[in-house]
């Protein structure tokens, strides 16, 4: 799959933003006034910034509002509805925390649930696609999105205890996702033999493509650039997203300033790492339509 920058930015940033909103909604940390304002500013900048970035790959962004209508069947529509509901609910909760010094626990809990729900609906957009076996893994794909979002949210919310546990969990999920994903295409049973229905007659190979140039399908689905670096990028992504932030949290340092600096470093490393694994999430994913072109 073509790793469109807008979609990588969107899933990375909004995942973090909604992860932070989840913790803020549960009162972790229970902040008010100016401090709360800064926390919510960061959370909304990430979540809304990500959502805006996702509209850049649309052919007609001006019609994006129509996407709220099909929540009964479409995960993409559900994601839109869930995101707006989460942002509005958390907006109410944030107003209480910032201006009225009060925490409306029920509203916060609802907002937290909706925030996590948004990340889940995002993950289901990918996990529902039978055409991309590497993504079509329930519950592994949703688990990957949710654990990474929660780990990043905990890091941003300064919840060190939870962050360490969640980073470990996200790391294990990532490893499981890679392990299982590498075998998913073969396990799906789809091959050029089933794609053409000619498998029973002999060994099928693509002899001539339909056209000499490229097309939308090849650009979008048969993206192979950089796959040869996949293993190295996995190591780099895992180190940045999981291992190094864990190390930052575990380092025994004295002084509040040093602690804050290390936490900030952990956040930056984590964001870079998640972006790297998200790039791989798309670049490594193989769409079955590539088979028709003799490509993967």
């Amino acid at each position: 799959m073509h790793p469109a920058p807008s979609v990588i930015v969107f899933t990375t940033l909004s995942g973090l933003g909604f992860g932070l909103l989840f913790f803020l909604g549960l009162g972790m940390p229970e902040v008010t006034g100016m401090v709360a304002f800064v926390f919510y500013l960061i959370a909304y900048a990430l979540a809304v910034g990500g959502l805006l970035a996702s509209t850049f790959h649309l052919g007609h962004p001006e019609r994006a509002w129509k996407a709220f209508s099909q929540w009964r069947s479409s995960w993409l529509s559900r994601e839109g509805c869930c995101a707006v509901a989460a942002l509005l609910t958390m907006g109410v909760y944030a107003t209480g925390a910032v201006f009225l010094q009060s925490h409306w626990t029920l509203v916060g809990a609802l907002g937290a649930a909706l925030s996590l729900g948004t990340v889940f609906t995002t993950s289901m957009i990918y996990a529902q696609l039978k055409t991309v076996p590497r993504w079509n893994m329930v519950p592994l794909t949703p688990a990957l999105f949710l654990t990474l979002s929660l780990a990043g949210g905990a890091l941003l919310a300064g919840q060190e205890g939870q962050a360490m546990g969640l980073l470990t969990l996200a790391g294990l999920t990532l490893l499981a996702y890679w392990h299982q994903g590498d075998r998913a295409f073969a396990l799906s049973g789809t091959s050029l033999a089933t794609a053409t229905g000619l498998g029973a007659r002999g060994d099928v190979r693509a002899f001539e493509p339909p056209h000499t140039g490229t097309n939308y399908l090849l650009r979008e689905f048969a993206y192979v650039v950089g796959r040869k670096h996949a293993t190295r990028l996995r190591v780099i992504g895992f180190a940045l997203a999981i291992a190094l932030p864990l190390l930052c949290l575990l380092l025994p340092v004295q002084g509040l300033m040093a602690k804050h600096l290390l936490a900030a470093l952990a956040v930056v490393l984590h964001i870079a790492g998640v972006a790297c694994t998200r790039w791989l999430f798309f670049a490594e994913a193989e769409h079955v339509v590539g088979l028709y072109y003799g490509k993967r």
Partner: protein
Amino acid sequence: MTDLPHTTSRKMGLVIDLDTCVGCHACVISCKGWNTENYGAPLSDQDAYGADPSGTFLNRVHSYEVQPEQGHAQLIHFPKSCLHCEDAPCVTVCPTGASYKRVEDGIVLVNEEDCIGCGLCAWSCPYGARELDLAAGVMKKCTLCVDRIYNENLPEEDRQPACVRTCPAGARHFGDLGDPGSDVSQLVAARGGMDLMPEMGTKPVNKYLPPRPKDTLSQTHEQIDVLAPFLAPVAEDTGGFLGWLDRALDKLPGGSN
């Protein structure tokens, strides 16, 4: 709503004969021609006369080589367009309701006024039937020439999809695959019509007819060239004027034996 209809009154679709297709791409061209000038946004080309041309097509012809365990490889031309699936994943993933499957004939269409060009329907289609038009920013797909098949301004013989009408080999057939008595259904039954990627669970309406076995020479005859006996000389010794001329020339100096 982009929910799929439980049932459709008819299942209009194509039957493509892989035995008969000669891979001429006439269906590709007629499809592009008709659908650029009629229903919806035109099928645009990018850099059409430059170094890296590409464009939107609703129908493309692949060619595959099949190598059996024994014997010669076979080349099979393979036209591919929207299969108008009964359980079309492209319809249910659409967030705006632009994609829909018609109850009256089962045709899967895109309402281009509602399409936001997110591309998710193309992602969900295993067959590569949908292409995002780069000029219009909306998703394009085979309409089964919905603006031809019911068009009373056209002569009756033209009221079928452009690809079917143009196919010089008669490799494409159009009809109601939901009616077991229709010509196309009988063709599918007689020739063992098959689904593409049945494991995807899309239940395609379009069917593909597998190539029929090739003629094989009788194993008892060693003679491979069946025409040779008929082309053998009927008389070795020539008579008449040409025979005399042949002998006379041979006798001249330098003549053969």
